[in-house]
């Protein structure tokens, strides 16, 4: 609701700015060409490591800013005028999700970028852009765009639900390769087009295409890998050895708690995979000789981590699962400082969801964890789990 209102406010303000600019600098074809390029920049989307897609806008802006040496104000005005149209076109082509989630951040980034380039042009000779210092200034403004986008995306996360703002910021910052590819190919075009004419297009376009394809493949494979882990984690559920949806729920909760407790992006991914696969060892229960006998959660962790260890890339995930059955502290002993935080989180969330599966209410299940706190569970993890659940219920 709040996002939707902000988007509309952005749209109206930028539309007004665009119209005013068009009236003030009704400067013929150059204005129209630049505006069309900006509008088109909304439509081409590049994959990024966080899974979001980034519009071509930064490349278009960089190319035009470096090409149009004479009038950065005109560039800025054309960009402002083009934004609402590009926005509308993007909504028609890609749907509301893209315009709601991506474009507001990019619009703010563009405004910052344009303002800085315009201010610089007042003080610095445009020829400077052909020299290293000029390019450094350009790099700085591009960095400001990237950071602004990351910040706006973070602020767009309203703090409720399972994704805390810190996680959004970390994911937004992980998108640097996409922005680097866009800014450098745009700059390449801007610097060469006046000398090389249309040949500047393949010169900038080929490396851009290389990056575009590589980032797309990376993202697709990352998604496939995640889907596969999810599917493999659901195999014991399909076999009726675990309640349906347990792995997925435990993974969601674990990531939310891990992000809140300061785990890195890499560690969060490891935790998510560990949570999705923590019960995969239950497939051995298809053997009646094992399922008929007695076995503990510790045995299940052992089976699961043994199965995961067969995959080289999951060895560090297997370590998280293997350590999750260790108690936080045994009576009369110091707590184990080497116990990974990810394992403690996984243990708590699996126990919480396990409680819910047995018919406990959310409150009863978390109270059961509180009773085990300081022995079975880390009190800080349990407190964090409570906070995350409270935030989700709001």
């Amino acid at each position: 609701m709040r996002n939707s209102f902000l988007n509309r406010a952005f749209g109206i303000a930028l539309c007004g700015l665009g119209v005013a600019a068009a009236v003030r600098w009704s400067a013929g074809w150059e204005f129209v060409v630049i505006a069309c390029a900006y509008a088109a920049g909304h439509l081409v989307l590049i994959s990024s490591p966080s899974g979001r897609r980034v519009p071509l806008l930064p490349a278009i802006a960089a190319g035009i800013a470096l090409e149009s040496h004479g009038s950065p104000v005109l560039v800025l005005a054309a960009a402002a005028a083009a934004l609402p149209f590009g926005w509308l076109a993007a909504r028609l082509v890609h749907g509301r999700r893209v315009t709601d989630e991506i474009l507001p951040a990019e619009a703010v980034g563009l405004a910052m970028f344009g303002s800085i380039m315009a201010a610089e042009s007042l003080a610095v000779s445009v020829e400077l852009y052909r020299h290293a210092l000029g390019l450094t200034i350009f790099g700085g403004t591009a960095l400001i765009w990237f950071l602004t986008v990351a910040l706006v995306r973070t602020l767009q996360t309203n703090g409720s639900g399972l994704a805390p703002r810190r996680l959004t910021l970390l994911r937004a910052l992980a998108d640097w390769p996409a922005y680097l590819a866009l800014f450098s190919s745009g700059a390449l075009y801007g610097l060469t087009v006046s000398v090389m004419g249309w040949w500047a297009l393949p010169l900038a376009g080929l490396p851009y295409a290389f990056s575009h394809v590589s980032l797309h493949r990376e993202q697709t494979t990352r998604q496939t890998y995640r889907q596969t882990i999810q599917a493999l984690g659901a195999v014991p559920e399909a076999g009726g050895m675990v309640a349906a949806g347990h792995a997925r729920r435990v993974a969601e909760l674990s990531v939310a708690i891990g992000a809140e407790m300061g785990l890195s992006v890499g560690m969060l991914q490891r935790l998510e995979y560990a949570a999705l696969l923590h019960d995969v060892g239950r497939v051995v229960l298809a053997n009646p000789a094992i399922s008929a006998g007695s076995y503990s959660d510790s045995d299940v962790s052992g089976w699961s981590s043994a199965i995961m260890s067969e995959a080289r890339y999951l060895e560090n995930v297997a370590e998280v699962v293997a350590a999750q059955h260790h108690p936080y502290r045994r009576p009369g002993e110091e707590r184990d400082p080497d116990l990974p935080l990810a394992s403690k989180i996984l243990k708590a969330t699996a126990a919480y969801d396990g409680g819910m599966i047995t018919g406990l209410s959310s409150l009863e299940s978390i109270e059961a964890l509180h009773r085990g706190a300081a022995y079975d569970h880390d009190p800080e993890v349990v407190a964090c789990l409570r906070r995350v659940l409270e935030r989700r219920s709001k």
Partner: protein
Amino acid sequence: MTSTPHERRTAILAGAFAAAGASLLAVLFLFQTDPRPLWLWAVFAAAFVALGLSSVEVNDRLFVSSSNMVVFTAAVVFGGESAVLAVALMAAVAVLHPDDLRERRWRQPAANFGQLVISVTVGVTVFLPFLPDGPVTVDDLPLLAVGAGFAAIVTDWLNFRLVTFFVRVAYPDRDLRPWSKMLPHHIAISVLGVFGAILGAAYVLVGPLILPLMFLTFLTGHVGFATYSRLRDAHEDTIRGLVKAVEALDPYTRGHTERVARFARIIGEHLGLRPEQLETLRWAALIHDVGKVAVPRDLLHKPGVLTEAEYRETVNHMRVVEEVLAEVDFLRPIVAIVDGQHALLDEMRTTSVPIESRILATADAFDAMTSARSYRAAVTQAVAFDQLRMRSTVYGAEMVEALIAAIEQEGEIYGSPDEESRAEVERLVRERAIRA
């Protein structure tokens, strides 16, 4: 120190390659001027070495190194008078691979030195007529692009020929990809050549400022492809590892998946399947038995024939797991192949089953028959072939004959040396769909 005749032959060949490369360099020193400035040559040489060491997988099993691009950038930048010498020297310094230095190997670097110097020298010499006599202008770009695209293919072709010649002599057992199947590789190399020439012209026309921008864009692409390649490996490794772990639960099926994948590949290759079909087949073989994890072990290991109810229960367990796997977009077509295989063996339908399913069924049946199980011994290879031929209406005569021909061609023997009764084998083949 004694050496085998094969080692002596390899050493002589590597020495001959190196001598040819060194002679070419000596000739070039006589007829070409030194590349100037030296620091710029050093930058290009460093880029050539770095890109040569880090080829990326741009598509399924298609590895491309961008070092070819640097060859044509340098050729344009240094101009006709020193272009050939500049790139030949770049190639000469690029042969020192850290692994070779660490393991003190000299034959491979010597051979690489020769083949690289020869191929880039010939390639850039072919490119020379396309270079302008004076400074590069925008008008020269079309000719430069065409020339570089052609010369890049010549360089790559010659390089391939020299490498295959050396490998055939040095490693006669190694399987080499035929030249006819390398079209996508040549297209990629040609595009890189064209791009290298345009980049060289941009350097001359605009200045060195474009180099860091180029570097950054390529770095992003390179990092992306490297991550893609790593994730692909991780994906396959994960599935392979988990399948292996599941197989390990039953000592009698250990290694079954890998063998089925191998048999399926050799049938597919014998039938001339496309690389992407072979890749799909490999994945199908990898997951074809995953569904068994949900089947109770007493059913899987039950001696004798399953009752209709038990059989249905087993199939249902497997289908549930396969449906879970089919939720992964990538695995959906692969699960469809496995499903086709089950339908075939179940004799629910034997028509309109994809060729990949039939190949998988043939490979699976052959391994099931020639491997021991908890409830029976392996049959002999001859009996297995007979049984497959008897059921060729189900598997497809083409698949059965392709497997037999491929195995006989390789001279491999599978299965038990003891004869089993045909009736017993027939019964086991009927059951194998659920109990292999």
